[in-house]
């Protein structure tokens, strides 16, 4: 069965609909990437899956005993709170030294257990967040723009690590990312979100879908522009698609 299934889920946040009529199910071991412009409900989708926001309509069914590892978009560490990497890994469940050393090794942070979190670089910090999520041996790993603030090589390395972890542990991965060109080879499925699911399917399918073009066609983020220029040979002429649109949703691959 699916790890988790959202049926017709709508979420209202502070008076506006952050998500409407989302149908989504995640299968074991699949890698799903969620793309969408700012304010399109990507983070809300992940926060709905972990239960931090409740849907106003719709139903969420999780496999009994589902273990979710969550890596938040950013973690604002208050400078008044002292926290070593080891102490952080032991929140909220106490871990043994051996467990912590093993996961730090996996995540490329060997020997950093006694370092203060505040002393880590951006990339190391994201890996520490990932390491903590992995300690719970998740069936489903949720990454909310985990590479925000990392440079191109940094985020490429991070995604390679995710790919390797997926292979080794068989965990399903749902990640929010702007960098479709980086996650393209890794993702089984891409979901293009803008309050509702605009289109979904195989990465190449989504990248060429008019709904996706409508969202990212003009004035897009550098990363996506880079993707289009590097991998796509039919330019322009397709960006006149009006959005929000009225066609039936869900152009599946």
């Amino acid at each position, binding site marked *: 069965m699916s790890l988790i299934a959202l049926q017709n889920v709508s979420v209202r946040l502070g008076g506006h609909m952050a998500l409407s009529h989302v149908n989504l199910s995640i299968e074991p071991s699949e890698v799903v990437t969620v793309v969408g412009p700012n304010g399109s409900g990507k983070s809300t989708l992940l926060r709905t899956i972990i239960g931090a926001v409740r849907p106003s309509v719709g139903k969420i069914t999780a496999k009994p005993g589902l273990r979710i590892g969550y890596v938040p978009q950013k973690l604002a560490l*208050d400078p008044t709170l*002292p926290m070593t990497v080891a102490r952080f890994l032991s929140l*909220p469940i106490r871990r043994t030294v051996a467990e912590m050393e093993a996961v730090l090794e996996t995540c490329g942070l060997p020997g950093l257990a006694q370092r203060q979190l505040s002393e880590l670089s951006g990339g190391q910090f994201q890996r520490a967040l990932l390491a903590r999520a992995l300690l719970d041996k998740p069936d489903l790993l949720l990454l909310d723009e985990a590479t925000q603030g990392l440079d191109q090589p940094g985020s490429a390395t991070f995604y390679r690590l995710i790919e390797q972890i997926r292979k080794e542990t068989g965990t399903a991965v749902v990640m929010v990312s702007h960098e479709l060109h980086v996650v393209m080879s890794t993702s089984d499925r891409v979901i293009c979100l803008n309050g509702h699911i605009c289109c979904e399917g195989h990465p190449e399918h989504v990248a060429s879908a008019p709904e996706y073009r409508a969202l990212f066609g003009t004035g897009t983020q550098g990363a996506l522009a880079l993707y289009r220029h590097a991998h796509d040979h039919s330019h322009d002429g397709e960006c006149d698609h009006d959005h929000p649109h009225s066609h039936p949703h869900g152009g599946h691959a």
Partner: protein
Amino acid sequence: MFDDFLVRAALAGAGTALAAAPMGCFVVWRRMAYFGDATAHASILGVALSLAFSVPVVWGAAAVALLMASIVSTLSGRGFAMDTLLGVMAHSALAFGLVAVSFIDGVRIDLMAYLFGDILAVTKSDLAFIWGGAAIVLALLALRWQALLTATLNPDLAQAAGFDPRREQLVLTLGLALVVAVAIKVVGVLLIAALLLIPAAAARPFSRTPEGMAGLAAAIGVSAACLGLWASWEFDTPAGPSIVCAAAMAFALASLWRVAARQNGG
């Protein structure tokens, strides 16, 4: 030995500091300094009400502190301009409390004792309440420690781990109200926030983990209580403020040490 008023005062100060310091760490980490202020200042209204209805002062103070803390913690999640709102609530609660006290006739009350504490007049039953309250606060924090820390770090991380961050907020709200009730006799409503914040702030530069900071803050708080009492005896100064002064000096020394260590370090 409980017959010596100085011993009772020292025990009262130590018990209060022991509970206030770890609680104060959360106040610092979660940036709730004004929250502590509002809760403490509101308790004077509780004092007035208890005197009017002839119930023990600590119960009235605890009840009003809890009410205030709950209001503030409910509002905090709803996008109000919190610093303004808390500033308004802290000081108006204090003003209403002072006005309410003035309505109470028949009882002559020493307002100063509630504003600045009256640690030298602590009775055996006060002492029982202080240590009982402190024990409850410490037990509450110890039981929920991991969940509280996770929720403090990031509410969504707590949520993903199966804890409701709002429940952890409630635990802190309860603990804070209890600390306020416990501390009224020792430092008075005006200086309770100081007892929460200063030991925690002084402990920060020397700490590597949250537990280390809470433990060190407790040690600094207890030392400040003893030192303040001694100073009060030696120089004939008011006891509550003397305790806060001692803690403030510890903070100043800690800050100096931090600056010096930074310069040496590079």
